[in-house]
């Protein structure tokens, strides 16, 4: 019988980064988490041949990158044929992240690298901007005990993104957690 730990593939990092897979940042995370596979999960990119190709080529040497739709990501997550994979998942925004988590992908924390600014969003830190939906999503994650880890690169000091949100008064109650 297989040990319980390997019932699904090993997702070692779930990172929100609007730029998805890019250069040195990704390379440093790949090294730090020792993954052999980068899964870029985005319905938009999966449809866009150009971006798909660009992203797959941007993978650091020795690591393979694939671009998947959300539904395919969830499908292969539960498919025992892919259990051997040690993966890092990159998503563009909190919405995609919560779709994966609510789909059953287990992660102890979510790494928040960057969320780009647009007219609906307000800046929280120098690289992260959030809108109303994003905040709700972070509240949802926080209440389920998922650590919101704000780091651009692994060597940055760990910073709790929840605290950032509190400091800027996007959210109020820091202690409240759902069972």
């Amino acid at each position, binding site marked *: 019988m297989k040990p319980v730990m390997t019932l699904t593939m090993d997702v070692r990092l779930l990172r929100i980064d609007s730029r998805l897979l890019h250069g040195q940042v990704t390379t440093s995370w790949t090294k730090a988490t020792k993954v052999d596979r980068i899964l870029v999960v985005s319905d938009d990119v999966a449809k866009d041949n150009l971006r798909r190709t660009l992203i797959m080529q941007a993978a650091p040497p020795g690591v*393979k990158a694939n671009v998947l739709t959300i539904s395919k990501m969830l499908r292969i997550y539960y498919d025992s044929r892919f259990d051997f994979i040690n993966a890092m998942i990159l998503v563009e925004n909190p919405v995609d992240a919560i779709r994966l988590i609510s789909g059953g992908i287990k992660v102890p924390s979510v790494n928040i690298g960057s969320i780009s600014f647009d007219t609906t969003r307000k800046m929280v830190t120098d690289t992260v901007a959030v809108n109303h939906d994003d905040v709700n999503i972070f509240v949802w994650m926080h209440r389920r005990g998922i650590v919101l880890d704000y780091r651009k690169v692994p060597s940055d000091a760990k910073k709790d993104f929840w605290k950032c949100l509190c400091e800027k008064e996007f959210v109020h109650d820091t202690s409240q957690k759902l069972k």
Partner: protein
Amino acid sequence: MTRKDKIFEYVKQNASIESEGYTTTEISEALGIIRNNVSKELNVLVREGKLQKIDGRPVRYLLAEREMQSRNKVGEYSQRKSQITGFTNARLTESSNDDYEKDIPQDVFENFIGKNDSLKNQVEQAKAAILYPPQGLNVLITGPTGSGKTYFANAMYRFAMNTGVIKKQKFTTFNCADYAHNPQLLMSHLFGYAKGAFTGATEDHDGLIQEADGGMLFLDEVHRLPPEGQEMIFYFMDHGTYNRLGETAKTHHADVRLVCATTEDPESSLLQTFVRRIPIMIKMPSFSQRSAREQLQLLRQLLGIEANRTDKDIKLSDDVVKALLGSVTFGNVGQLKSNIQLVCAQAFLNSMQDENEMEIEFDSLPQNIKDGIPRLANNRTELSKLSRLLEPMMVVHPNDASKIQSESDSYELPYNLYEIIGSKASLLKEEGLDQPAINNFILTDINLHLKSFYREAKVDQKETNLNEIVDQSTIDLTKKIKERLQNDYAYNTGDNFIYAMSLHISSFIKRIRSGKPMRTVSGDIVTMVKDYPEDLRLAEQVKKMIEQYYKFIVPESEVYYLAVLLVSLNSVPKSGSVGVVVAAHGNSTAASMVQVVNKLLGAENLASFDMSLEMSPKIALKGIIEKVKEVDQGNGVLLLVDMGSLSTFSEQITNKTDIPVKTIDMVTTAMVLEAARKTSLIDSDLKTVYSELRDFNGYYSHKDEEHSSSQNDVDKRRAIIAICSTGEGTARKIKQIIDNILVDQLIDDVVVVPISVVGMDGRIEELEQNYRIIAATGVVNPDIGVPFISLDELFKGGGNEFIQLLEDSDRYYELNPGQPAEESLSMSEQTACQYLEQCYTFINPKKIIGILQNYCDLIERDSKKELGQSKRMGLIMHLAGAIERALLQTPISATESELIEIRTNKMFSSVQKANQMLEERLNVKFADSETYYIIKLIDTENQD
């Protein structure tokens, strides 16, 4: 009498005591020789001491002192002595010397094989790079292993020497692979080091760059240069300065012409930075890309070298020539050279008693060279070209070889092989060995020496791959079987044979060893094999060989399976990829599309044909046929054309050339790219490529019925079929391999179904009920219009790419489940609007487009002819132009006869009606000539 002699005689005969000597002009006029030449010859004569120069303007020439003496004129002559300076004016002499050197054409490329053909461009590029003022240009030579990069670089160096642009007497070469594992050592070699840079650096040391100052530096395998080295080389290229190891400031300067060479694809990321900095890229063609004539010339030249070495005539029959040429695969000219050395060494050994000649006999050739003949036979056009050039017996004499020889040729043996053979043979003879034993002994030796070349090029890679799955002993047995079938039974075994047969045997053995019951023979198989008595007989032989080898009894039933395998392997003709010809109107439309694609993919099966608008279809057809012949590799040709009228050609071409041709119109660069990808990566047939590309085309414009049926298939599970003789042995192995690839690429919705050759067609039909078959692989191509990958491609590691490609081409099925026709129509309407807006000033596209659609509708109704989407758009564009012309009253012209001619056209009345409608609605008046052009437009487009 040479020119020089004439001049000398003239001066001599007219020499008298009073004579002041002759000026160059005087001699020139007297003898009718061009002044420059006279001057040159006079200088030679002065140098030889036959004439003397007298200073002054103009310079005069006299007989030299000793010549005068021979004419007994000493006395009168001596008084002038003081004025005669003879050979002393160094500066003057030197400069005229230079002139003299330059006048002799010393173009090393003159004798280059292929200088007017396959290397024409390359030679011109090379010359340009060398002569480019002031310092020449850096050059990157690319090309496959053994294609002659080093040889070419050497020739460039000699050219530079002969033209005097460099003076350095040494051609500095460096192989970047030598120290690739030790960047520091490499850097110190290239750039030198300063005293104290590291332990043992007791004094300053110059590197190769300094050594090559004022000359040329050849960097071989430049892709192996480590990043540190690249940086410094780049800096050096840009600035001409560098620092030694252990120095900080880049204070050293050197003028070096860099020639780099690599086997890598210049498009690879590694080389990108290089390519940016190197203005001249020279691509050496592979051996197979060179014409039969050139291949033969190369062979002759290489044989000439051996003839010179042995100082014997070399005789060889046309079969040997064919075998030698055909035996060249990945290693190009270098491989040919090695093979020639091998067979010459052998021939030398066999003909030691003959002083004057040695014959290379076909029977004594090693098997891998004999194999060249069937390989050559696979390419009918090449073979026939070659046969025309060949004589039954070729003789190469010792002096045939051109003397050009590069010192740093890695294919050159570092010693005289023939001397070694000779001395070794006599030594062995003294020891009392008989001739066959001696031959055997030495042959092993020769083989060992020459093998090193093959080791370097990793020829065995394929096999080691197979090794992971099948025991070496089984592979050995299979090789024996292959040899036996080929030699004794003339059974044509392709590349696939080793894979298919060894996998088959291996699974059979495992079955026996594991004690599983034997396969039963179904009636189907027996019936099928009955049609192939020949293969059944061969299968009996193979069975016997297996029994002998493994020392156990192979059940009778296995013979049938073996026969099935032999039948299917034999029926796979080995041929090249599908050729692609792009034909389009315009001066360079087709050429530039092909150029783009060639640049992106490095495809070799593409050709382009540009036709100007004036060109008659007859000439166009002829030109296209030439191109089709050029790219045909026995697997048919895909013709991509831009407009309808060209699309009728395919049948005519097939009739005239017997080459299957399929045509797709409305060619775009993207389509050429797709065609090149499909034809180069997949071992697929014309039919498959054609049907896939038509779909690719259909994505944008028309959706035909065929396509909509395949849309229903989208819901079905995708499947790849793996075919072997039983459906259980090899096919299961293939399934494993592909499954692994699928998992690796995270593809979870494709199943691999192993099936048997027996009853294959029925089984495929059955599968199509539940699956959408997207590809096939195995011992035989089922020919069902899907991509196929052969076993050897799969084992060579082509599987990954193949699956990737499938996934890419399938992607749009999933994501774009066919847009309804209206939608795509409105889309092109939008583009039409945009286009109208850009191109025309006075009309409002949004308002007018509806009216123009009506116009098209009217034409369709009235003439009862469908215009079709693309023709509609073309007509709308044209009409917009016509309206604007009418508004501005700048009509286009048509001749009287054209206007009359058009009245008889069957479209005339429809167009007239439509025009009337348009004129009324917009209140404009069209010139009569417009009608002519509109009809012409509709008519040409209706031709197909």
